[in-house]
């Protein structure tokens, strides 16, 4: 086995985004020896890309708001596939988590009376998103980062984890990784491990995700035997940039629509009025006159259809483009220029103004933006216990995008940042409790470490393909066959294609040496992306209905029967299988929230 260093810990947290940092703060405060490991530098995690805000029923702008309304909105947005207990805890605890950030130095925009301002977003009944212009994720990440630094928490930067380590009973007791800078190996012996490694977007061609979004956390858990939930539920955000080609997929915040922006097709029509589903008809304006009055008066008027949940809007855009009413570069138009003053737009949406000016040479205060759906978020993920975030593998916890259940079949905007805080904290708390309940240090099996390091170094000693070529093929496959609209025949084709891609990935070879070698890193990230792609494809084949982010052309409606089950994927003896397992039953007192009229 190659030489390596070893660090002994109580709690190892994989991922330095919002969930990982929040978990670390909690675990450290509980007295556990805690360290964070991240593939990137501290402060660069994908959380910085979150723009619009963090959803919490603070009731600062609409005193009528409370956790029950937020819970109901979240479950309805998730098409009732959510783990009800996660959605409940999330709605109940989000306000305290936001106020806590303020205590750590976050500086949200203010109401006229000096409290935290909240903005409108799709699927939220009231203006609920605490925000800082359109850079809320950066504010959240920087605040948690500065808190973690002030507590002296160790952060191991630019370190890629290759595999988790397990004892003879199957319990997780550490992880093996390597420093990107030097290519040398490092072993973390830990009594608890928290996976907070974010999303999977780099598996698709057009995505808002950064390079890190390769599903490492999902894959590590899958390989360790953990259950995955509803991996077919992937969110295609309706508004990504479509032009220029190099900017394709970059996110355009939902805040544009929350602040008055509307969608138009090539004829100038506000087409969303043609796509209001029955499920939301009662609460959605059916005329432009009514919709436009809602921004100022939410009591007497219903919300504009541009603010329907993301899955509805993304599908509608897809239909307009297919019908030949798209924009010149294959999207539709997002227009705020004709609806708000230039000063208002620049103040409310400074990053969007900057992004379009710099990348597309478009002045959004004068011209409409061209936008279209982009792979943004995975609702599915590692199966966790709602209260403790414990996975089905002892010693292993998961929070944030890596965990499944919270968002059901579709996530509402703003619910991701609050999810990170609520369940990041819970993960840190329970991982620390688990670790502190065990005496002595975790000890890892050297033979296991050796087999992981041998595996990781294999690309240097074999003849094969460039990993970039395999990644390109995987992205093409997933974009075209497991994209926003799916059908049985294409999904089966994708499943077969993945067998071939697995074989190609297993024979990639890399040039050069181990010091900061991106080709080598990609050859290992590819394994994670392929694991995710398989879970998503198998889940998508099995879920023979359309629900939330999962749309089947051959099963265009929801199925009552399938709405009561999770698609669970797990790996046994190297093979991934999928099965239907019943959703946890919501208690009657919560069910009544859905019977009340709007």
């Amino acid at each position, binding site marked *: 086995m190659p030489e390596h260093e070893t660090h002994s810990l109580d709690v190892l947290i994989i991922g330095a985004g919002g969930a990982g940092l929040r978990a670390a703060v909690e675990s450290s405060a509980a007295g556990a020896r805690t360290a964070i490991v991240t593939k990137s*530098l501290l402060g660069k995690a994908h959380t910085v890309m979150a723009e619009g805000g963090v959803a919490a029923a603070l009731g600062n702008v609409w005193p009528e708001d409370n956790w029950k309304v937020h819970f109901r909105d979240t479950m309805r947005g998730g098409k009732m596939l959510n783990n009800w207990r996660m959605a409940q805890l999330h709605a109940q605890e989000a306000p305290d988590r936001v106020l806590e950030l303020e205590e750590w130095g976050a*500086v949200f925009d203010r109401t006229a*009376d000096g409290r935290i*301002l909240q903005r409108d977003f799709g699927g939220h009944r009231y203006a609920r998103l605490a925000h*800082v212009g359109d850079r809320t994720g950066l504010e959240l990440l920087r605040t948690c980062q500065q808190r973690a630094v002030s507590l002296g928490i160790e952060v191991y*930067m630019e370190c890629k984890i290759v595999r988790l380590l397990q004892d003879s009973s199957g319990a997780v007791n550490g992880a093996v990784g390597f420093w990107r800078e030097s290519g040398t190996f490092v072993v973390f012996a830990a009594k608890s491990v928290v996976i907070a490694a974010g999303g999977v977007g780099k598996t698709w061609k057009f995505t808002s995700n950064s*390079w890190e979004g390769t599903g490492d956390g999902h894959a590590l858990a899958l390989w360790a035997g953990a259950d995955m939930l509803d991996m077919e539920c992937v969110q295609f955000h309706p508004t990504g940039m479509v032009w220029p*080609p190099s900017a394709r997929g970059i996110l355009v915040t939902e805040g544009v629509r929350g602040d008055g922006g509307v969608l138009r097709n090539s004829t100038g029509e506000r087409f969303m009025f043609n796509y209001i589903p029955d499920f939301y008809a009662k609460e959605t304006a059916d005329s432009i006159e009514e919709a436009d009055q809602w921004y100022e008066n939410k009591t007497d008027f219903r919300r504009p259809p541009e603010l329907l949940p993301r899955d509805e809007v993304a599908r509608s855009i897809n239909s307009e*483009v297919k019908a030949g009413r798209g924009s010149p570069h294959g999207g539709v138009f997002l227009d705020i220029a004709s609806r708000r003053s230039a000063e208002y737009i620049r103040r409310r949406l400074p990053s969007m103004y900057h992004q379009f000016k710099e990348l597309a040479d478009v002045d959004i205060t004068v011209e409409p933006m061209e936008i279209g759906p982009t792979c943004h978020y995975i609702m599915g993920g590692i199966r966790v216990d709602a209260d403790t975030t414990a996975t089905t593998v002892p010693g292993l916890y998961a929070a944030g995008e890596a965990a499944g259940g919270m968002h059901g079949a579709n996530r509402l905007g703003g619910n991701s940042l609050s999810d990170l805080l609520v369940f990041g904290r819970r993960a840190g708390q329970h991982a620390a409790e688990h670790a502190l309940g065990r005496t002595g240090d975790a000890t890892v099996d050297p033979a296991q470490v050796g087999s992981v390091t041998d595996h990781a170094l294999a690309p240097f000693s074999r003849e094969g393909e460039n990993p970039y070529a395999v990644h*390109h093929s995987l992205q093409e496959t997933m974009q075209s066959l497991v994209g926003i609209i799916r059908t049985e025949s294409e999904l089966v084709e994708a499943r077969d294609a993945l067998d071939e891609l697995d074989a190609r990935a297993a024979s990639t070879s890399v040039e050069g040496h181990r010091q900061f070698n991106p080709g080598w890193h990609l050859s290992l990230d590819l394994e994670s992306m392929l694991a995710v792609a398989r879970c998503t494809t198998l889940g998508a084949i099995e879920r023979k209905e359309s629900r939330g982010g999962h749309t089947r052309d051959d099963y265009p409606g929801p199925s009552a029967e399938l709405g009561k089950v999770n698609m669970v994927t797990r790996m046994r003896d190297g093979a991934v299988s999928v099965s239907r397992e019943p959703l946890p039953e919501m208690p009657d007192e919560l069910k009544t929230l859905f019977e009340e009229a709007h």
Partner: protein
Amino acid sequence: MSSEGAVAPATRPAGASAAPENVTLRLWRGDASGGAWVDYVIEYLGGEVVLDVVHRVQAEQAPDLAVRWNCKAGKCGSCSAEVNGKPRLMCMTRMSTLDLGEPITISPMRSNPVIRDLVTDVSFHFAVARRIPAFHPGPREADGTYRMAQVDVERVQEFRKCIECFLCQNVCHVIRDHEENKPAFAGPRFFARLAELEMHPLDTLDRRELISRELGVGLCNITKCCTEVCPEGIHITDNAIIPLKERVVDARYDPIAWLGRKIRRRPSPTPASVTAALSPAGASGEVISTDPAPRATP
């Protein structure tokens, strides 16, 4: 295929020549022990930023080319480098703004030790961050909230836009060619952080001794190089460093004046009647400034 509905083939921008154009990227490749410029000739596809072309070199010609990047949208500050000698974010530098007839040079940030190719050792900056005492707020209002006026938080928010690309640290001449100054100088990014804490309406700590004696704000002689390269347009010199210099000087001469400023700046809690009268104008996201007190002048 059905799932490709929203995806049309990319077309070239109006006015661009129809024939593909080759460009030369002259990349610095090497490590701590030394390196050299290496030319890569590659097709320019139009509408690209420098990072796109670097990525294609990596995918097609040099898979082991080391480069840091994350978001590719100007929000994470990872892909800092010197493009034709100018410190830039590669993801926000459009190829069309450069002279494509000449080789485009890309080198690592000069003030950081090189690790490999375009990747540098940025540990100095993270070490400075650990030397800054964290935000330390006073107590909440009786109703459990913290009250701040929008006009007051905007001053702080300007500094919190920082994406930590460290381009300002890279051009700051106090440390760019003077490694020996690093132990006694925080650099522009951290003066912005300190100004943010000093100007935060809720913060209660006094960091002025640290700022002047250990973090070296006096070494800055206001050449504004940091402000010029900031991709977020933060006025680091005018809004952070100069006010910090003045506060540090004031503290030496007049601690009472400093205390007075700290107290005056705190906005008074708004009466409950105003809360009750909050109109839907607030709900639509309009920020109405009600700052009652004159803004503190540094």
